[in-house]
């Protein structure tokens, strides 16, 4: 596929993907990063408020897709239940803000911690399952979550079917910007931090242990990797990050209700991961952009057939780049280097 990869690593794009093993030519990587960061900082100054909101949502879903990527691309476990953790995070933030009056920024670490604990615990029964069976178990979680949130017992806190209205924060220190714009920068900062932490996590000892489990569980355990610890840990971390995304989502949308977090959300996050490239972290945000914008585009082409056009566009993407945005990035890199040499 790419001649560049061949020199340093056996280009094995077929595997769930090699996260750490992508020694992109420095020049291209650096340029891409600089351009992206500048574009992200300047973008809100140039577009309407609604587009700023959409970009914010892209980043929030991007964080959630990233979390799934750590789980699937990193440790090789498959989950259709991410929407449940997203919901848990959203509700934790929402309830803390509305019932306890805690500052929105402070609710995020708590949402993350709660989801980490939930994910870690869920990881234990999940240890016994793999592949399709794990998919079904996580799927059960995704289906159960909206129903649990509607239960009368929790209604005092969750607001039942009606949901909770969350106040949108103003810009602090009297900064002259709209709420949407402030939220954009706030989310951008958190995205940046989470992204860096995730990249470092996967490069660390724990990350390597997870990838060893993904590639060959038995060999990994023979090498002394504690399989159950790292598998449950991967679940916990993934759930925790998803929880933070959920909290941010609640703040951005200003509303949490059980039916916003159905199984469809889990499917959307999954599609985001595939479109972005399984195991390639920057792709998470490309995938998130796909799940935020493409349904709108499809709706724009035809109202009645929006589902069909969404499906067709999805097919087009997976035909062109079966390995997701990662493949696109490799093409771009090859092109860049050709241009530079000529």
């Amino acid at each position: 596929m790419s001649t560049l990869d061949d020199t340093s690593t056996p280009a094995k794009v077929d595997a769930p993907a090699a996260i750490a093993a992508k020694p992109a030519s420095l020049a291209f990587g650096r340029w891409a990063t600089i351009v992206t960061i500048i574009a992200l900082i300047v973008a809100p100054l140039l577009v309407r408020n609604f587009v700023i909101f959409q970009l914010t949502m892209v980043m929030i879903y991007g964080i959630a897709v990233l979390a799934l990527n750590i789980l699937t691309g990193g440790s090789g476990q498959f989950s259709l239940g991410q929407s449940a953790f997203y919901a848990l995070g959203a509700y934790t933030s929402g309830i803390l803000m509305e019932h306890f009056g805690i500052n929105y920024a402070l609710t995020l670490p708590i949402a993350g911690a709660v989801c980490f604990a939930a994910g870690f615990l869920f990881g234990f029964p999940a240890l016994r399952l793999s592949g399709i069976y794990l998919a079904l178990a996580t799927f059960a979680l995704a289906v159960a979550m909206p129903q649990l949130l509607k239960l009368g017992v929790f209604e005092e806190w969750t607001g039942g079917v009606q949901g909770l209205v969350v106040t949108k924060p103003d810009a602090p220190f009297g900064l002259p910007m709209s709420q949407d714009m402030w939220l954009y920068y706030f989310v951008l900062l958190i995205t940046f931090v989470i992204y860096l932490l995730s990249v470092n996590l996967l490069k660390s000892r724990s990350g390597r242990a997870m990838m060893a489990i993904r590639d060959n569980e038995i060999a990994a355990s023979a090498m002394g990797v504690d399989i159950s610890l790292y598998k449950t840990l991967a679940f916990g971390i993934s759930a925790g990050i998803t929880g933070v995304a959920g909290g941010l989502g609640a703040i951005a949308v200003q509303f949490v209700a059980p039916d916003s977090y159905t199984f469809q959300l889990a499917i959307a996050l999954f599609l985001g991961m595939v479109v972005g490239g399984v195991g390639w972290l920057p792709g998470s945000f490309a995938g998130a952009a796909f799940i935020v914008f493409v349904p709108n585009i499809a709706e724009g082409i035809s109202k009645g057939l929006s589902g069909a056009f969404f499906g067709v566009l999805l097919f087009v993407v997976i035909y062109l780049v079966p390995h997701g945005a990662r493949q696109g990035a490799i093409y771009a890199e090859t092109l860049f280097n050709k241009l530079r040499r000529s």
Partner: protein
Amino acid sequence: MELFVNQILAGIATGAIYACMALAIVMIFQAIDHLNFAQGEMAMFSTFMAWQMIQWGVPYWGAFILTLIISFAGGVIIERVLFKPLAKAPVLTNVAGFIALFAIINSVAGLIWDFTIKQFPTPFGSSPFLGSQLISTHQVGMIGVTLGLLVALFLFFRYTRIGLAMRAAAAMPESARLVGINTGWMVALGWGMAAAIGAIAGILIAPVVFLEPNMMGGVLLYGFAAAVLGGLSSPFGAVLGGFLVGIFENLVGTYVPGVGNELKLPIALALIVTVLVVKPTGLMGHTVVKRV
């Protein structure tokens, strides 16, 4: 006690629906090694075709046979056109393809036949069976057809050359190719058969759940659960799983206090997960031995 027996009967009746669907899911799983998320939508589309033919005045059984033939051809065509190019792509990309197919079929069916609920005729009649209010003759017919289908499939896979070739192509594609089996066409054949079985399931289910583009949503979930519970490698397990899920669901709804319709599905799924944790390959599944 009578309540208990009645609930079990009702469970078997709904279980038959899930069993049909689970059987179709397992069929395609055996042929292509993936769970096809679009299976339910394919079945729904076939059912609509049958309905349309009946509306045009084709007799019931004629429409039934025609639908099976068209669905079979449709399944083969979908595989050849849409999924063959993805054969080398990663598994998860294939799953995304199924989701895309789901969206397309659902949306097109909605456009052609709109979203109003339609009645679907039954050849078995809908009077109470043996005086029981809970189970109708249609449901008994449905159970009969499911079991008949199961036997036919068993014979097909066990005793015909082509059945053996299909099993070989699914289990060990490379070795199968070496002994001269055209594995590509075996996969297409699997899709065709799954589409046809799905069509039978859809036509049998439609009189009970009514016909509309989203009719398969719930059924597919239970069908998946049933297939996984029974073990994805075993058609018999799938049917057993279907009945078990149906009975589970009814008993939970009746005996556990505070469980409305809303919580039936999560509880049924939780039970299934519990079963899986104890027996990770499902009730009737074979343990796959992995080489290191």
